[in-house]
């Protein structure tokens, strides 16, 4: 997690206000964690292995995610996580190939809730698309509405087609995250909405291109930078940026509900842009008539494409802080 990205997302301005995630407990569901990584040593307060192969991270996926949220920057302060004073609770749910079972995921969500986490990072998605009534999505809605725990979900990497967001990214109460590159242009692989029942998803987008993160020992699922770090990509890596920002906002406003924080995050996004190539590739070749029709479609679909691809835009932590401050003050008066 480089300092440059933190600055771009407005996170460093929150650090200057002493908002660093202190006292916030973040749950991470995924492939386990490398507890020996210097950036994560002492960060993890509880772990549970529901995959049955031990808590160690065989794939490297969730060590990177935990690092984006909470890395201490032990070797280099410029590589610390967005909410570097948070603590972590880790639920491992995957098998060696990264797959997980539906009922195991619900068990993991329940266990994390029982540990008192404030927010859960969920960078796992279903292989097929649902309308949000599947059990995992319902459990996510239940945790947000009844237990006050936010769940931040990856949109998935099945783009550029629409209707490609799986469970639990389609859950109404989840904060669903797509990914952009370093110029805030949507990455082609980022899954797109709407949901099967027509709701806007993803909700927001965050950086997901060559993010420098802690690398679990002996894993090669990234572009290797050094023994301890690697470059990671796409929506699973974009998601913990929003989880980290949620943790910061929750520290700043402990009484805010997950819905209020979500409203603040979505209501304060910076613009994100559509890759021009995704619309050009939908243009058919052929007669002038077909080209005219395609151009008409190109412009009429622009709004639909944008709304259901980048959601409300790219997340901005400082603006979300100001927005939440405003919302909380309105609540008081």
């Amino acid at each position, binding site marked *: 997690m480089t300092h440059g990205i933190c600055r771009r997302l407005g996170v460093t301005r929150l650090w200057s206000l002493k908002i660093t995630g202190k006292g916030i407990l973040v749950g991470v569901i995924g492939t386990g964690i490398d507890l020996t990584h210097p950036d994560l040593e002492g960060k993890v307060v509880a772990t549970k292995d529901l995959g049955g192969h031990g808590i160690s991270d065989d794939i490297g996926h*969730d060590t990177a995610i935990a690092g984006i949220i909470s890395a201490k920057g032990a070797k280099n302060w410029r590589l610390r996580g967005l909410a570097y004073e948070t603590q972590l609770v880790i639920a491992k749910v995957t098998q060696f190939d990264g797959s*997980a079972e539906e009922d195991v995921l619900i068990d993991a969500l329940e266990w994390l809730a029982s540990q008192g986490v404030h927010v859960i990072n969920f960078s796992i*998605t279903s292989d097929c698309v649902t*309308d949000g009534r*599947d059990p995992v999505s*319902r459990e996510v809605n239940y945790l947000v509405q009844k237990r006050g725990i936010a769940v931040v979900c990856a949109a998935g990497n099945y783009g550029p087609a629409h209707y490609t967001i799986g469970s639990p990214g389609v859950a109404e109460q989840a904060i669903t995250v797509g990914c952009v590159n370093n110029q805030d242009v949507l990455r082609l692989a980022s899954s797109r909405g709407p949901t099967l029942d027509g709701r806007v998803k993803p909700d927001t987008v965050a950086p997901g291109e060559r993010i420098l993160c802690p690398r679990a020992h002996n894993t090669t*699922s990234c572009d290797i930078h050094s023994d301890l770090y690697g470059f990671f990509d*796409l929506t*699973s890596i974009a998601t913990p940026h929003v989880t980290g920002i949620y943790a910061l906002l929750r520290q700043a406003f402990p009484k805010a509900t997950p819905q209020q924080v979500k409203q603040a995050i979505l209501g304060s996004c910076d613009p994100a842009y559509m890759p021009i190539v995704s619309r050009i590739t939908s243009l058919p070749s052929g007669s002038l008539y077909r080209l005219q029709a395609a151009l008409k479609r190109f412009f009429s679909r622009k709004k639909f494409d944008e709304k259901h691809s980048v959601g409300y835009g790219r997340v901005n932590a400082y603006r979300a802080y100001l927005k939440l401050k405003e919302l909380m003050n309105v609540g008081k008066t």
Partner: protein
Amino acid sequence: MPDCIYHFQYRGKNICLSAPSISPCGACPRASTVLSGSGEFKPAMKGRLKFSIQASEPVLAGLAKDPRLEVIKTISHIGTMYVTATEENIVEMKMENEDKLVTFAKAIPFRSVR
């Protein structure tokens, strides 16, 4: 897309085990094409498979007693029960209880987003 939908023709009726919660994928038309016309149920897979059932609490309690199903767990706050059963038994049960069930689907495979 993976084989996530089960759509059968059984005794002249179309049965989709996951409707309406999951979108059609490649498996659905393929299964119905293979099975339609034969008029007979042909299990696509052998052995017992995991399914989720969403229904009201009394309905789930009733289904839990069905000897054809082996209950893995019940998650009452979201009205969901996970069971294992053979496809044939599941299809029969789906037909018997169609009106009472909210959804009845094969457990969806998940994976880490890479």
